[in-house]
């Protein structure tokens, strides 16, 4: 009897986590643009957990990371290049979700553009959630898997010695 109760409890817990993780929110309330805020002004009660606990949001963040060319400076897996790496524990302007959100919205010196007027707030939070995955701060069941990198072009032949396949550079 006790075992049944315990099992039911565990299932309910998992079920609750499941529901939040798997939700697909197509109509976001926070669809307004994230206008640049003054550095001292904290963003009003953004539901970070709603994004960081949601696998679909993280996956959307992954898509936007490519679409908005974040990878152009920070590279595909956050390894950095022209821009600083996002994988390590060094954060020039703060590594909390709120700080990352502000960096994206306000822009930063030496090349980080301000996306506040160009990206809806909820999409910034999706990007924040994805960026957090680089430093392993997402729960295992929410973290994204490896991305599909699609090579648009003639697939190199494995036996073609004249045109060897370029080494894959993927996370």
């Amino acid at each position, binding site marked *: 009897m006790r075992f049944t109760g315990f099992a039911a409890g565990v299932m309910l817990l998992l079920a609750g986590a499941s529901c939040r993780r798997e939700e697909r929110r197509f109509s976001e309330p926070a*669809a307004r*643009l994230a206008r640049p805020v003054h550095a001292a002004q904290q963003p009003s009660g953004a539901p970070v957990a709603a994004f960081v606990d949601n696998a679909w949001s993280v996956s959307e963040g992954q898509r936007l990371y490519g679409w908005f060319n974040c990878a152009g400076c920070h590279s595909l897996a956050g390894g950095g290049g022209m821009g600083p790496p996002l994988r390590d524990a060094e954060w020039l302007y703060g590594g909390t979700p709120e700080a990352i959100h502000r960096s994206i919205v306000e822009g930063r010196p030496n090349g980080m553009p301000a996306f506040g*007027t160009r990206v*809806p707030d909820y999409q910034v939070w999706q990007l924040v959630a994805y960026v957090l995955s680089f430093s392993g701060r997402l729960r295992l069941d929410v973290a994204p898997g490896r991305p*599909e990198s699609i090579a648009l072009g003639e697939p190199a032949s494995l036996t073609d010695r004249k045109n060897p396949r370029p080494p894959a550079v993927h996370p």
Partner: protein
Amino acid sequence: MRRHAAARFAVLATGAGACGACDYRRGALDPASPDAMLIQILWWVFFWTAAFVFTGVLVALAVALYRGRGRATAQGSSPDVHPDAALERRTERAVLAATALSVVILVSLLLASVFGGRTLFRSPHAPLHAKLVAHQWWWEIQYHGKTASDLVTTANELHLPAGVPVDVELASADVIHSLWIPNLHGKRDLIPGHLSHLVLRPARPGSYEGRCAEFCGLQHAKMDLRVIVEPPAQFSAWLTAARRPAPPPATASAQRGAEIFARGPCGMCHGVVGSKASASAGPDLTHFASRAWLGAGALPNSALNLRAWLEDPQAVKPGVQMPPTRLPAGELDDLLAYLGTLR
């Protein structure tokens, strides 16, 4: 080609006539190209053969039931474990004969299919080239020309000249999609990492529907491709017009709209040749206003629908990769004015 026109018409007429009052002339049964016509002919061959076989089996079953019930009434129901040997042999010969007939029919159908397939995929020389890239959940179409500035990039509408084969190169940007224009040809999967070709030879001018035919996610249902087949002269005129960049906006409202487009969220994903917006993650909007549909078949392209789409695309096509455009009313009007100039 012309010799077969009469035969084609005859088959079409037979097919249409046989179906009586039903409107069968849709989709695959309404061919507008020699390829779709070949498939349709093959379809009717298979259909009538199947109808013949099906009727035969049902008649045999009915006769068997009749005779069996008759025998039961006459002879009672004691089981027959050692049936008469001669009768058994006759029965087994009948089964053998039916099997032999099945083999003959199947082999004939096989030959028809194989030879039909070979004819279908004998790639004719195609003077025109286009490229189709499938995305979740829209179609990107490119027409290359002799120089780089002749490149036309458009979305969700494929223009083809009637009577001229077009070699369409197929690629996918994300998952497996499938191009299916039933009036013109069979379908071809667009597989990421694979490049394939389909030669389209529409014969009849008109407007046809293409669809995605491989489940590709949330909005697989709303990924329509409009195929517009025009006489070659009209097609050339269209292509020339498409090569021109978008005209600079004339009215003040449209100019403000252009600024909003390029500096705001629109420019993060969409591009308009001739403006400051040059992103390519989403559909190219250079000649957006001249398209009949928006959202890959989600809504007809009208001012009212466009406003609704911009305000909340998720209400029209839940899951689409476009966020709502939250602009103050005045700015939205300017944006709509600008979009209306993109012919």
